[in-house]
């Protein structure tokens, strides 16, 4: 099977340690980096929406905004794929706790913010994007499945596509189930063609029946192990910072993606 070739035009990144992709690159080069503010700025949202939006939306919109700004493309023209393993766990915890104690008091706003496509909704409303938007999930393969969905969409439709992968830290009994201890978001603008805006090119190949390589390694205490997106995306993020390299990541339980990254000289 021939590889799926897509080209990265924009990168967005937010973690408690790095507020954008430049900060990650600086740190990998041994330079000092300031941590971002505790709440992602999500400047793409109008101020009133930013106050009301739940944390999952702020995180997704922050990295989406960074990636689209770097690409120089108009957000309104980009079909978008939002991928998250757990959605808004703070709202899940609130809703399940409220339903257990006083169901009739459930907040209507938190309910409509609880849909998995809330980040996609806020984003398309803020940017006037009427192209297709999707919201997906795939367990610990959520990042790889998102990359496959976005690359497939970009190549099938021959359009640039925004991919946003993010999960916030969990809380309460549901947070214990997800074991997500930190927030992390990562976004890419992917194009089917090389252009002057190409930052790096990805050749993606499916590797089925990849049982052993996809089994989670024993925990080592690294920061990225506390977030399902970070744990999957960390090798590709390092390759993007280095401008080259290859990695294997999970797209499903036993389906691997081999991603070879090259930068045009």
């Amino acid at each position, binding site marked *: *099977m021939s590889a*799926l070739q897509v080209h990265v035009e924009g990168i967005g990144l937010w973690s408690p340690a790095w507020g954008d992709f430049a900060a990650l690159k600086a740190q990998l080069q041994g330079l000092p980096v300031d941590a971002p503010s505790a709440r992602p700025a999500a400047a793409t949202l109008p101020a009133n929406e930013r106050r009301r939006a739940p944390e999952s939306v702020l995180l997704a919109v922050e990295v989406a905004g960074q990636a689209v700004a770097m690409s120089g493309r108009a957000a309104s023209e980009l079909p978008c794929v939002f991928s998250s*393993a*757990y*959605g808004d766990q703070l709202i*899940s915890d609130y*809703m*399940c*706790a409220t*339903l*257990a104690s006083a*169901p*009739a008091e*459930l*907040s*209507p706003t938190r*309910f*409509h913010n*609880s*849909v*998995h*496509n*809330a980040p*996609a*909704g*806020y984003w*398309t*409303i803020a*940017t006037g*994007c*009427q*192209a*297709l*938007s*999707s*919201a*997906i*999930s*795939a*367990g610990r*393969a*959520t990042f790889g*499945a998102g990359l496959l*969905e976005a690359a*497939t969409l970009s190549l*099938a*439709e021959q359009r640039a596509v925004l991919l946003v992968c993010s999960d916030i830290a969990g809380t309460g*009994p*549901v947070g*214990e*189930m*997800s074991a997500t201890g930190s927030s992390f978001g990562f976004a890419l603008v992917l194009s089917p063609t090389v252009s002057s805006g190409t930052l790096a090119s990805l050749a993606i190949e*499916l590797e*089925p*029946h990849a049982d052993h390589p996809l089994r989670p390694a024993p925990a080592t205490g690294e920061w990225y192990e506390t977030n399902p997106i970070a744990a999957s995306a960390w090798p590709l993020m390092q390759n993007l910072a280095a401008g080259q390299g290859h990695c294997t990541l999970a*797209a*499903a*339980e*036993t*389906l691997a993606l081999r991603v070879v990254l090259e930068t045009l000289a």
Partner: protein
Amino acid sequence: MSVPIQPLAVSAYTVTSALGQGLESHLAALSSSHGGLRENDFSSAPLACWIGRVDGVEEAELPAAHASWECRNNRLAWLGLQQDRFLEQALDARLRYGAARVALVLGTSTASIGATEEGYRHLDADGRMPAELRRPLIHAPHSLAGFVAESLGLEGPCLTVSTACSSSAKVFATAERLIRLGLVDAAIVGGVDTLCDSVLFGFNALELVSPEPCRPFDQARRGISIGEAAGFALLERVEHAPHAPRLLGYGESSDAHHMSTPHPEGVGAELALRDALARAGLRAEQVDYINLHGTASLKNDEVEAALIARAFPATTRASSTKGFTGHTLGAAGILEAVFALLAIRNNMVPGNLGCTDPDEACGPQLALQSEQRSVNVALSNSFGFGGNNACLAFGRAPA
């Protein structure tokens, strides 16, 4: 504008809802205008409304090998998979193509959140999830697709689409792209959503739940009735099932308007419709039947009725089937895709149960009673929170 796609064969399909288990019970109910709604006997606290509950879910125990996935949503999935020989046909596709060459793309809005809710009602002495529910896989949106992939032994791309009430319509689009690019040879698509407190009390908080059985497009409609359903379809290239009905096209769009109300002029809904017609290479007058989103919410029905009235001739028939099943949320896309396929298979337009005095925005297309007439092309509309729209186009195989 989108370019036409190669149609795909829908070589197997099935559905389970408040109308019963499998295609024949649905056809019988639609033909005889027997709805499946009942007074709410589900929520953990009283709530005066009507629901579309599936009988027999509680008894559909999962096989012991998959017991770690036990929850009501996966029981409904398991019950649904066993109707209309779908399970056998899915396993046959896996044999013919190989486990890694069959994609699984399922839609759900709440997955097994019902199990998470149950856990919170019975937290242990330390305030943690009770021991029998301390199973992380079921407390995540991917619970449904994870379970179905394991139970069918599939090893290809596996994805949960969760865009509220358009979820299990959009799965057809994702599957078509995977097949078009040659990454897989077939795809199992579908969706499952079960009743849970989150949606019953959530829609109630939004004042969208009707105190009586829902009445889509009626002037006196008072909101939605929530239901549950499981449905599945097998997609493959037409040469492998030349006589099967076909997925002709699909459209997807965003309203870019509001999180919980549709665009007042139906801009996003019309974009999805035009996208579907363009991919299918169809003109509006070639459409025989449209299964409408028709939730019976004030806003949705007004906007959708106006869209149908302005975009289609009177010869196109249209109806919402939510008066039969309730609004099955993330499963509505697949349930109503199957209704479109049944309309083609049986040359039958389902009636719009619950509507006696149509909203003045309705055009002459609305079919209040079921009709026997030739149906060669049928559409299905699905719109979700966040302004997320999808439209599917199906057609009869050429003679």
